[in-house]
């Protein structure tokens, strides 16, 4: 252990393929993606677009998290995953550390704001204030921080689909600057009518199960969930008698600066994020064991990402897959959920399958992994998160080589 390392001690996930990490891995193993007709979200588009909902109502999530059932589903999901993450890290009493919670989300308590707004538009003195009091993104994080007893550093990041990757990056910096001992970092987002309708206006929602990196892909499926990793600095890692999952060795954030929503044809932002993250990790293309793709399934995103990967890795593209083919695109949560999958891949030697793949993209020389496997030699995994506003971020998780 060398001074400034950042260690991943654990993680937690709740999403459309499982209410915890173990259930998610079982779904990958059994090739069971989570797309279905919406059950919990109420929308006129119910029968048009499949979604990947967490298979639990708010009362169940509230019971699991210890939070009241009337608050935003985004906070409930966050609390469930953050709790699992903390427990998996086996650090004991949370109050014994300087703990940071850095959580991302894209629309805060919008699920409740939507209900409020329908009444408010009829009469601006109407609508229940308790439904709008946690509208802000930061409120969601604070509901969870307060429930877990975290107050040393509580922060929220929102950079669209790359939000949680940036939360993890900021968390790592807080550790390296000795502002905290432990960080729980990742993100959360519940499905809302606001985002479903928003993505529908962009005409990038697939009416069937999405097909990332497939030549016939026509769009993405929205999902929901939350995912967090627990990171500690060297000083804490050395004190603990715990075997960490892996190290966070590289991270970078770059901007595509091409268009507000579309990715540039050559994926310059994607390329820069990946290249700089690998440079920080001190590894070359030949050292990469697996890439967890951003892979939303839209025509534009996958082509840009694929082009950037080809430019960076040439003919030696490592195994790649988009777990969004199982979880859907969970927006502000996706970087957190996928970071847990990436860190676990290093720990357990997992390669995750890309579901619904059957046609090679003609612009690319590589195709994704389509079956689940374990016991692989996985030394370095990259997790990509790219989004609106040109925000592109990549994380690299590595095995401790002794």
């Amino acid at each position, binding site marked *: 252990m060398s001074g400034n390392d950042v260690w991943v001690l654990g993680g937690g996930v709740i999403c459309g393929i499982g209410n915890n990490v173990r259930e998610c891995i079982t779904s990958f193993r059994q090739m069971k993606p989570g797309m279905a007709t919406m059950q919990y979200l109420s929308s006129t588009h119910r029968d048009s677009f499949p979604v990947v909902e967490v298979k639990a109502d708010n009362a169940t999530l509230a019971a699991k998290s210890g939070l009241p059932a009337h608050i935003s589903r985004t906070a409930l999901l966050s609390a469930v995953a953050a709790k699992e993450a903390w427990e998996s890290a086996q650090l004991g009493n949370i109050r014994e550390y300087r703990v940071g919670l850095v959580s991302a989300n894209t629309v805060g308590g919008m699920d409740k704001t939507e209900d409020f707004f329908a009444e408010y538009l009829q009469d601006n003195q109407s609508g229940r204030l308790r439904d709008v009091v946690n509208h802000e993104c930061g409120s969601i994080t604070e509901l969870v921080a307060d429930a877990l007893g975290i107050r040393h550093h509580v922060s929220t990041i929102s950079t669209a689909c790359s939000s949680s990757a940036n939360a993890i990056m900021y968390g790592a910096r807080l550790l390296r600057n000795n502002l905290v001992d432990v960080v729980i970092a990742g993100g959360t987002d519940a499905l809302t009518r606001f985002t479903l309708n928003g993505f529908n*206006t*962009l*005409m990038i929602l697939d009416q069937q199960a999405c097909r990332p990196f497939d030549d016939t892909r026509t769009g993405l499926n929205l999902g929901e969930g939350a995912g967090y990793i627990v990171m500690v600095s060297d000083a804490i890692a050395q004190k603990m008698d715990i075997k960490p999952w892996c190290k966070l060795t590289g991270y970078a954030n770059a901007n595509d600066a091409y*268009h*507000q*929503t*579309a990715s540039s044809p050559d994926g310059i932002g994607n390329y820069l994020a990946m290249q700089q993250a690998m440079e920080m990790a001190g590894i070359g293309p030949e050292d990469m064991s697996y890439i967890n793709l951003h892979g939303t399934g839209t025509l534009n995103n996958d082509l840009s990402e694929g082009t950037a990967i080809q430019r960076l890795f040439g003919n030696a593209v490592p195994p790649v897959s988009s777990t969004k083919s199982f979880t859907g695109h969970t927006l502000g949560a996706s970087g957190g959920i996928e970071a847990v999958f990436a860190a676990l891949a290093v720990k357990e030697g997992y390669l995750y399958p890309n579901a619904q793949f059957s046609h090679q993209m003609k612009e690319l020389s590589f195709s994704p992994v389509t079956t689940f496997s374990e016991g692989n030699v996985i030394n370095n995994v990259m997790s990509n998160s790219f989004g609106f506003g040109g925000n592109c971020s990549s994380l690299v998780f590595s095995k401790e080589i002794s």
Partner: protein
Amino acid sequence: MENLMATLKAQIVEQLNLQEVKPEDIGDDMPLFKDGLGLDSIDALELIVLLQQHYQIRIANPEKGPEIFHSVRTIADFITAHQQQNK
């Protein structure tokens, strides 16, 4: 046709909030995207809704946008063809 094109120009200016562009500044055959009027892919999506709202035409595949929305004349042709088909 001339009337339809004039109406379309006014609708485009309004829907896309083209400040400092007057409907009559838009030529019938002026390219709407890139070097012409300078519209982009977000505008194309706005125009799809415009056709739906004002002309009850649904375009399911956004990939068809560039062809239909090349100029005011191509949009007018598309609307006319669609209306005749439905007669």
